[in-house]
């Protein structure tokens, strides 16, 4: 453990912007949702009606879980509990892998390990900083909640529940970082575990059996029942989970070499068949694209299955009212459901598309582009070879998602797939932003692109609570996508064509600038 303190300072130095931004934004969110909930649903009757409507919506149940209490605190905890644990978990996975396996993969760890740095120090430093950051954001959210008039004890429990979710996935990532020599695989494994855990909770909350939720940190984040009976002991599950996995990670780390993994590295072909930039790009993108396609296919099937029989089951007055508000009178319940779910899932697809769109920058930053571009491969051809996957990839993913949902729903494959594909121009717009950033400010391209997506997500979330409107809401390309399943009368061509044109203009400008600038290493 020698040298852990120095490494902690190194981690804090490298993330001196990212950590505060993430902590402050996440810590401010609960208070703003609580105050807007109090504003929107002024009396208990209104809150009860909202809760009843939400509880009859399987999509809400799957995404956010069960409402334990229809008070302001209970609704706030329900709105944010699961999603803040999800965001915290994702950020924690990325941070832990960035400071452990990625350091080894790039060889920087070797340099540090040759100094007076103990074998366990890098892992210990990552597992000190990331959970501490989660706890800090949990604690920082408490004063705001108390200021809106919520009880301090329950607010503290809520903050700690959110922090627990992040800490749990920091520990998961600490284990997966020991398993493979590739940081990409370590991230993928940890996020895969996270997806499984989220699915366990979603299944438990939308179906008859409740016990799977007890197997998942996302379940625990809700089962602490903040503002609804405060079960403090559930926090103990987080502590045990983190302690066991962290101990496991330290035990695994002494069984392997620096930069080695526990899963063996296999040999490959001695001769290659890759033909040029596009062949290489295909090889680099195919693994993650196939993984995403399988994931979105499963997700689509899950969505389709949950939508089965909705039209008869949910023929309640509340839901008919909700359906009428969202989709106009006479809208089918399942169509409202698909519309709502696809809106959210299209933003996940955008995340996958950004991974592809930013790969060219990754190649440039790592210096791998130097070698390829020293051969007769033009800058434009190289950039296009990666952009092609950011353009075609989301089309494939949205088609798979929609088709799987339609198939599992047992009918209307083309209708559902078509309505899902309508989000493609919105996804492309974010890809266009990433391409422009890649052309203008290559070093900040990843930060700008992910921030843009994050802003759109927050805008959409706030719009749900009517906290933003007008120009601010118009910023998000997702808002402009017509709900094909609902308002079939209005022509969808104009907004889709406009979004496509914006995306195209952004991409063309980005590509033109990529050709004009110097290659910029990290």
């Amino acid at each position, binding site marked *: 453990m020698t040298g852990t303190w120095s490494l902690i300072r190194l981690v804090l130095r490298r993330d001196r912007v990212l950590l505060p931004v993430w902590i402050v934004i996440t810590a401010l969110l609960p208070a703003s949702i609580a105050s807007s909930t109090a504003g929107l649903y002024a009396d208990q009757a209104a809150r009860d009606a909202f809760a009843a409507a939400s509880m009859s919506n399987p999509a809400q149940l799957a995404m956010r879980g069960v409402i334990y209490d229809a008070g302001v605190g209970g609704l706030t905890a329900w709105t944010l509990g699961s999603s803040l644990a999800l965001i915290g978990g994702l950020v924690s996975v990325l941070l832990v892998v960035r400071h452990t396996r990625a350091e080894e993969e790039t060889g920087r760890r070797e340099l540090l390990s040759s100094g007076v740095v103990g074998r366990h120090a890098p892992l210990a430093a990552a597992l000190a900083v990331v959970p501490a950051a989660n706890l800090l954001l949990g604690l920082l959210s408490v004063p705001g909640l108390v200021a809106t008039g919520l009880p301090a004890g329950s607010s503290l429990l809520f903050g700690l529940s959110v922090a627990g979710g992040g800490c749990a996935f920091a520990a998961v990532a600490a284990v997966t970082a020991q398993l493979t*020599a590739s940081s990409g695989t370590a991230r993928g494994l940890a996020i895969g575990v996270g997806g499984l855990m989220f699915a366990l909770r979603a299944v438990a909350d939308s179906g008859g059996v409740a016990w799977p939720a007890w197997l998942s940190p996302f379940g625990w984040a809700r089962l602490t029942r903040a503002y609804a009976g405060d079960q403090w002991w559930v926090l103990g599950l987080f502590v045990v989970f983190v302690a066991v996995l962290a101990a496991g990670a330290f035990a695994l780390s002494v069984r392997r070499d620096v930069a080695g993994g526990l899963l063996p590295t296999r040999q*490959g072909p*001695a001769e*290659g068949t*890759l033909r*040029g930039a596009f*062949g290489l790009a295909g090889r680099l993108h195919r693994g993650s694209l196939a993984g995403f396609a399988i994931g979105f296919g499963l997700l689509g099937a899950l969505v389709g299955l949950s939508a089965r029989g909705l039209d008869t089951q949910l023929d309640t007055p509340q839901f008919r009212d909700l359906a009428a508000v969202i989709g106009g009178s006479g809208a089918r319940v399942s169509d409202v459901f698909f519309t709502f779910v696809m809106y959210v899932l299209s933003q996940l697809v955008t995340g996958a598309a950004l991974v592809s769109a930013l790969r060219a920058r990754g190649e440039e930053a790592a*210096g791998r582009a130097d070698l390829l571009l020293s051969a007769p491969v033009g800058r434009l051809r190289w950039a296009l070879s990666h952009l092609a996957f950011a353009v075609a990839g989301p089309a494939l993913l949205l088609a798979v998602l929609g088709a799987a949902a339609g198939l599992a729903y047992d009918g209307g494959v083309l209708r559902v797939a078509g309505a899902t594909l309508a989000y493609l121009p919105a996804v492309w717009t974010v890809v266009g932003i990433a391409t422009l950033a890649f052309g203008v400010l290559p070093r900040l391209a990843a930060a700008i692109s992910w921030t843009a997506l994050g802003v759109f997500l927050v805008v959409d979330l706030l719009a749900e609570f009517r906290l933003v409107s007008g120009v601010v809401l118009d910023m998000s390309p997702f808002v402009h996508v017509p709900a094909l399943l609902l308002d079939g009368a209005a022509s969808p061509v104009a907004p889709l064509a406009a979004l496509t044109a914006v995306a195209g203009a952004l991409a063309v400008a980005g590509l033109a600038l990529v050709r004009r600038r110097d*290659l910029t290493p990290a």
Partner: protein
Amino acid sequence: MNAAVHAEGLVKTFGRARALDGLDLTVDKGEVHGFLGPNGAGKTTTIRILLGQMRADGGRITLLGGDPWRDATELHRRLAYVPGDVTLWPSLTGGEVIDLLGRVRGGLDPKRRADLLERFELDPRKKCRAYSKGNRQKVALVAAFASDVELLLLDEPTSGLDPLMEAVFNECVVREKQRGRTVLLSSHILSEVETLCDRVSIIRAGRTVESGTLADLRHLTRTSVTAELAGPANGLAGLPGVHDLTVDGARLRCQVDQDALTAVLGELARAGVRALTTRPPTLEELFLRHYQGAAS
């Protein structure tokens, strides 16, 4: 136009830092040209400009008769590049990378590829993430030497190789030269440049401080003289052009400027010479003088 590379007054700035500050470089066709300088002198920046990966802020540059920025793709058909710090795609094998680079450059000679793999003792079936720095460098070297190009741009290509592999590298460069190819070899390993290069350019802080054949450059520097004398050579200390004189009993050492050699030999002969060694300056000494001179 007989120059493969011709640069005049090249300037490149990064923010306030001036990486290149009026650099001149001429590499004739068919020669092996050493490009020497300490770390941070601007060698890699120059090579990146030659590759069209960066645009110079000032000065003129031609590469194989074209503009390295505007005609980059066309020119790249005729050159191969080995970076000093080779990073490869971790999921591809070395063999796949060699064939990929070969194909985009218009094909590899399979016999030469096999021969080079054997000489460099490189296992092409390993994934690139499993290669050491030296092995990654070998992948880039095999790809470059097996391709059919006019110009090789090698940026500190042996920094990760062991001495045996350095010898293999030297043989390969000699063979390329015999084939009539032009090689620009950037290095701070002087013995390598000394054995391989026809001409060298020495740069420092973004400027060319010296350029010419090794013989030309030795002109500028001093000869080491070690002598055992029969009697004292008292006249030597006062002679202009004699430096670092040390006398240890009958043994004497000094550094002598070229135009003072005759006078020094006269003084030594007067004292009576029992043994005499003179040595031309190594490139190390040449190098040190340039840097020390410029630093002070």
